[in-house]
């Protein structure tokens, strides 16, 4: 088998090319250094098998960062039968610096000038034969996600592995830059293109003083609104479908003992069905939309606009990107913090990662907003109102992240912000089909699968707690009763607090646990209708204040078990993991205490 490494700068479409060659699905982001782990895949060409190793995207091979060390070590180790350096045709000069550096390590190099189609649209032409002559290695042109040039690339790779070529002597870094400049001047022809001017105009609109922040809020608001407005109908359909399946299951289990029927049907099945019905629709809308923003190249612009705030918090501007990842799933956000180079700033980003609500919290937040603040109404205006409130909750999460980051910078993680350079890649036309497939497979199904695998045993556990009686009350009632006085101090009640505790494995099950406990029947009844849910909560003493406090606590409380585990893995420290639990919990309890006390003192509730 032949082994070939793929190297290149971040954002050159390396992972997309990797996918196109191997057919393996792998997530590709639009920001610097996303591919941190080394991905492998294989393909067959003319009866020969080739293994591709997707090295992390780097600007250099100087081994100053983890990614660079990985890439350099692999190329130097001689494990590869050849290295393909992927370049961005729209920005060839900068990319050539890395090519020259690779050529100093090995002579078995193939240069793949990718994104030729983008370059053409931007008025950039690259003379590939001339480039090949200058560099002394073969050069092929490709066009990213499309099939253009793929056959030629495979053919060139086949020739590469059987070639022999020595490395060139090492040059000084500045020398490489000068050489890249000279080569680029000789092989790149660019004429001022209408398209480039338009890109700059859009960029200016997205980042200017007057429009940058409003447009950012508008874009995120639009995503949130589409999620809120679009999720209702499929949710109702799914609930109905699951009710029917439930009825069939009930028939099958008719002969089983009552406890088994209760455990399986009322516990496992109903909780799992609830999680799927309320989670799947918002996720299936949110993730593709968000991936679309990412694919367009908007997220680095958002980080650019937000950077000043992070600077004031004395942290890295890339934290905005990890915060966006947390919006999908906090655990993904924690892993994403690897893109931050400074250890101090990475730790701050990890510790504050659970302060933005993940997708699993959306259903609870949306339900509470709809019942208590939109008055259960439906229609365009109501969904806009709901979206605005959810956006407000997100903004509060961002404010919490900034505040806590600042606090950490001033106390346990003192320091000055490190230097960093953030690349704003050109806007790219999103590949809508790929975006949907990728966000469904990699994100939606992944997160849903995890939630379901947690919800099923949790459903059984909660059913047991609600049905095993000690003395005159169930275990669950004992627990909620015990927690009640404490919880009331914070504007909550024992059931709410217990639901958050039992919801540790997955935030999605918090609302179903609450319902089970309130209904005291020990099982979840179908609530396809939010009005019925509102009535139930009202019966148990919920006011607008309870809803506000429950939302605040939902926004700020301990990270879910998966996130805690990920934080432990990333930091390797029990102490930092404990702090990552303590920070959001203290913030949530503190806010609830202040809000509920203030409301009571002012006689508002």
């Amino acid at each position, binding site marked *: 088998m032949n082994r070939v490494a793929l190297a290149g700068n971040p954002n050159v479409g390396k992972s997309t090319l990797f996918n196109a060659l191997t057919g393996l699905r792998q997530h590709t982001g639009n920001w610097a250094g996303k591919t941190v782990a080394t991905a492998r895949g294989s393909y067959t060409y003319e009866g020969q098998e080739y293994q591709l190793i997707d090295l992390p995207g780097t600007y250099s091979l100087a081994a100053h960062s983890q990614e660079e060390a990985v890439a350099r070590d692999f190329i130097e180790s001689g494990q590869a039968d050849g290295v393909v350096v992927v370049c961005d045709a729209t920005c060839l000069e900068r990319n050539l610096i890395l090519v020259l550096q690779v050529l100093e390590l090995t002579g078995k190099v193939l240069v793949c000038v990718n994104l030729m189609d983008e370059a053409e649209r931007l008025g950039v032409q690259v003379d590939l034969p001339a480039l090949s002559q200058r560099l002394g290695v073969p050069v092929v042109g490709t066009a990213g996600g499309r099939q253009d040039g793929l056959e030629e690339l495979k053919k060139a790779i086949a020739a590469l592995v059987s070639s022999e070529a020595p490395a060139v002597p090492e040059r000084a870094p500045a020398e490489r*830059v000068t050489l890249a400049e000279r080569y680029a001047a000789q092989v790149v022809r660019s004429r001022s293109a209408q398209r480039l001017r338009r890109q700059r105009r859009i960029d200016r609109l997205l980042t200017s003083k007057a429009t940058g922040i409003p447009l950012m809020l508008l874009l995120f608001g639009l995503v949130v609104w589409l999620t809120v407005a679009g999720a209702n109908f499929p949710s109702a359909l799914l609930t109905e479908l699951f009710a029917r399946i439930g009825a069939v299951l009930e028939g099958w289990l008719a002969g089983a003992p009552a406890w088994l029927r209760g455990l399986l049907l009322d516990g496992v099945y109903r909780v799992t069905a609830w999680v799927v019905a309320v989670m799947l629709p918002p996720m299936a809308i949110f993730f593709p939309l968000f991936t679309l923003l990412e694919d367009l190249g908007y997220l*680095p612009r958002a980080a650019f606009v937000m*950077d000043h705030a992070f600077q004031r918090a004395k942290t890295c501007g890339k934290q905005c990107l990890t915060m966006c990842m947390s919006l999908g799933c906090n655990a993904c956000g924690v892993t994403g913090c690897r893109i931050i180079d400074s250890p101090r700033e990475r730790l701050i980003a990890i510790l504050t990662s659970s302060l933005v609500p993940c997708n699993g919290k959306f259903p609870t937040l949306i339900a509470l907003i709809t019942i208590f603040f939109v008055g259960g109404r439906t229609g365009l205006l109501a969904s806009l109102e709901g979206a605005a409130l959810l956006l407000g909750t997100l903004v509060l999460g961002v404010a919490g992240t900034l505040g806590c980051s600042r606090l950490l910078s001033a106390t346990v993680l003192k320091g000055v912000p490190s230097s960093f350079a953030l690349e704003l890649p050109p806007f790219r036309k999103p590949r809508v089909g790929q975006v949907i497939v990728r966000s469904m497979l990699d994100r939606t199904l992944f997160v849903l699968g995890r939630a379901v695998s947690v919800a099923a045993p949790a459903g059984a556990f909660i059913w047991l707690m609600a049905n095993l009686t000690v003395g005159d009350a169930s275990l669950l009632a004992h627990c909620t009763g015990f927690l009640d006085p404490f919880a009331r101090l914070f504007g909550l009640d024992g059931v709410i607090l217990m639901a958050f505790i039992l919801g540790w494995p997955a935030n999605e099950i918090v609302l179903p646990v609450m319902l089970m406990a309130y209904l005291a029947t020990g099982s979840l009844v179908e609530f396809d209708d939010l009005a019925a849910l509102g009535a139930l909560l009202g019966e148990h003493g919920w006011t607008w204040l309870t809803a506000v406090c429950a939302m605040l606590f939902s926004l700020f409380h301990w990270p879910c078990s998966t996130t805690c585990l990920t934080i432990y893995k990333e930091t390797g420290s029990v102490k930092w993991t404990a702090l990552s639990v303590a920070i959001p919990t203290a913030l949530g309890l503190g806010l609830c205490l202040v809000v509920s006390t203030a409301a009571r003192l002012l006689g508002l509730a």
Partner: protein
Amino acid sequence: MYETLCLSALPEGESAYVTEVNAAPAMDRRLTDLGLVRGTRVTCVLRSPAGDPCAYLIRGALIALRRSDAEGITLERRAQEQPARAVAT
């Protein structure tokens, strides 16, 4: 005579050439990787809402730098670069 200024003072839409880079070793290396060395032409393309950071066109790529980092980079404006607005965009 060439006019000297630091990168953070480069007005939006204007270009100049790098004469000196004063940065912490890690940042200096990163800037070299990005192709920012003495003699490199830099154009200020975008200014964020707060005026800091700014995004610069460096060898065909748009790179955002904070003011504190841009302050360490000295530029000179060459006479023919003065009316460079059209080129910058």
